[in-house]
């Protein structure tokens, strides 16, 4: 068996607005337009990922928060209705997900080996989190690639951003070791926005784009600072300032997904592809791809 590899990593934010605006058959609510720049960014990224023909998509989402360690899905098939608890009027989505249980268990085992606490979901009634569902839909609406879900341990919220980064980093390393041992070609999805201060009101027509802008200028400056680092391949520097970014911009990456991705990919020093940036109810969202085959980083 050849050595497995991470063939790409994507910062894949999960605003339900994007799915709502796209009107896929799985989603009940209907929109007339909205957030096109971000949706087109996802389209470009989607084509790149499709071309890679990965064996599995591995998603880390802040909307599966766990207090004790990291959790993984341990059943091959989950089916159900995901209703966004914050935006139920935008996202009521029927999902049918095939899980790569073998890979889930391999990552779990790598975590266990270094003393991390883990758990496996074996309850078929378990409802998958809407953050993961949204990111996965936006990257692969055909749902024809098996997936691995990883929960977001709450260490950063309990202790500090630095400790959260350590835990996410350890998880990233375990993920890389497991993928290499599996022989599979995998894509990592960090299901996070960047800055995450948002408006606390909403128009009757959510897709009214005259309302959409960044919540405040400081957020935008921070988002551009970190995106510029990504574009320049400055992942190590980005990890260094991540705790400050989280604090200053209320960044959603606090839950660890981006740190996990970068550490799993060996802290890439090649340029990431920023497919697009846009705001959703004031938060900063970017679709960013680390793809060594396109960036000369292989």
């Amino acid at each position: 068996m050849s050595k497995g590899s991470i063939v790409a990593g994507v910062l894949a934010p999960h605003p339900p607005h994007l799915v709502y605006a796209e009107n896929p058959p799985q989603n009940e609510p209907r929109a007339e337009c909205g957030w096109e720049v971000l949706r087109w960014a996802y389209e470009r990224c989607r084509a790149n990922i499709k071309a890679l023909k990965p064996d599995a998509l591995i998603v880390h989402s802040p909307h599966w928060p766990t207090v004790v360690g990291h959790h993984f899905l341990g059943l091959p098939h989950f089916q159900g209705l995901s209703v966004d608890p914050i935006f139920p009027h935008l996202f009521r989505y029927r999902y049918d997900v095939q899980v790569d249980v073998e890979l889930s268990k391999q990552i779990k085992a790598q975590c266990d080996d270094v003393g991390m606490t883990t758990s496996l979901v074996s309850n078929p009634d378990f409802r998958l989190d809407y953050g993961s569902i949204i990111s996965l839909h936006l990257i692969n609406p055909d749902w024809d690639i098996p997936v691995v879900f990883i929960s977001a341990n709450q260490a950063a919220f309990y202790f500090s951003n630095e400790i959260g980064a350590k835990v996410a980093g350890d998880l990233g390393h375990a993920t890389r070791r497991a993928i290499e041992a599996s022989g599979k070609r995998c894509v990592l999805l960090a299901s996070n926005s960047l800055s995450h201060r948002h408006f606390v009101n909403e128009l009757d027509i959510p897709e009214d784009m005259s309302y959409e802008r960044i919540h405040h200028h400081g957020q935008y400056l921070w988002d551009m600072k970190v995106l510029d680092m990504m574009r320049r391949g400055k992942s190590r520097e980005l990890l260094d300032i991540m705790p400050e970014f989280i604090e200053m911009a209320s960044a959603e990456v606090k839950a660890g997904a981006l740190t996990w991705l970068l550490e799993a990919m060996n802290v890439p020093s090649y340029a990431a592809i920023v497919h697009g940036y846009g705001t959703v109810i004031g938060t900063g969202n970017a679709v960013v791809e680390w793809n060594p085959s396109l960036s000369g980083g292989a």
Partner: protein
Amino acid sequence: MEGSLISKAYIVSGMPQLLLAPEQSPGWTRLRQAYQVIEADIHQQEADLILYFSTQWLSILGYMFQADPRPEWVHVDQNWHELGSIPYQFVIDTNFAAAYAEEVDQLGYKTRLIDYRGFPIDTGTIVAQKLINPHNRLPAAIVSCNMYSEKEETTRIGQAAARALQKSGKRAVAVLVSNLSNRFHVTKIDPQQDHISSQKDDEWNQKILEMLGSGDVEDVAQCVREFARQANGDQRFKGLWWLNGLLGQTNHFSGQVHAYQAVLGAGAAVVALLPSVPVAAKDLASTLGSEEGSQAELVEELTDFEQFTRPQSPAKTSPQSPALRRDIPAATLPDFEIVSSSSAEPVGNYPHARRYGDFLFLSGIGPRKHGSKDIPGIDFDENRKVLRYDIRVQTLSVIHNVKKILEDSGSSLEKVIDIQVFLTNITQDFAGYNEVYNEVFKNIRPTRTTVEVGALPTPIAVEFKVIARP
């Protein structure tokens, strides 16, 4: 109690272990037994509905109200899925949900009625419902917990529930679903060995429970912020503010702590509060004009990341940048103004206080009353010349004003570090002022300087200049 909007109120933990695995730990068993006691108690209540506020149902855009008449699902907790599934069906009082949402609308907050099949009801509410109202004897009403709200806003959401009850002609059992301290063990533990995750959390929990056991709900509401800071209160224990607003912000209750135990390190309790005077609603106008303090506005200031969040290197300040209005150097210490809504208005172009770094600097504060030009303790003649004044009354009024400003800044008299006192007649007034001063500051012991000045800008005899910790 006859004529009371609330027949009885309860504070319960919504941890799924209490429903699905109480036998695994002696502490969980005791909590489950306490739940059985209050289930029987609620069965005796003459109420029209059961009203839930759970810290596990978080909203970010205003407030949500469950309005599906029969929500049902099979729920699995995201953290403790290994405990099993929880099938549920609620009967919802949708008329009350609409009435409650309308009251909250009037406060200017975003509201949403939730009538979507499959909407995820939170574990805490489900656990409480299954254990205290398992057969839907009482229809339920459920309101979300806004994750950003502060004291004033959360209290108002509770007050709005009371008004909705009054207008609906209904009486409710109120249930706050919340842990006390909310610090979990972060590794797997043997449930038999479960314990509160730290002694400090345990001590704080017991302090709060002692007050609740005495029925002192308003007193607990005043301590919530400090408790949450010290013991990692569940969603900053803001649910207690909601409950306090609903119950009328008094200490007129007979309290009973049925159980207090750890659930995976968090502080879980079952508490009952029986009103000793009828709970009534406050009308909207009085709550809007209340002197609760503008904590929400303060927090808006404190979380206004415009002031703190500029990245240092590439940031080029723009003349239109909002941060410049505040004169804040980029990425530096907190520096902003605080204008109190409950202390006397400034007589010049200055704020009541300014926070810089870890200090609060108050402007010179006199005895004038909030919302008027009246100065307590002064008699004027028809030409507004001072006939006589009472330095004790004036000093007390100054301290009252200082207290209001500090509280509106998230601080308190106990955090005062330094006071400068200006008297217009030190020979005559020192003794009286000092007597009142000692009553308040004897045990706080800030540093103090008292001087005589020729005059103060209005016909007052005393003014304080205060520095405090925020």
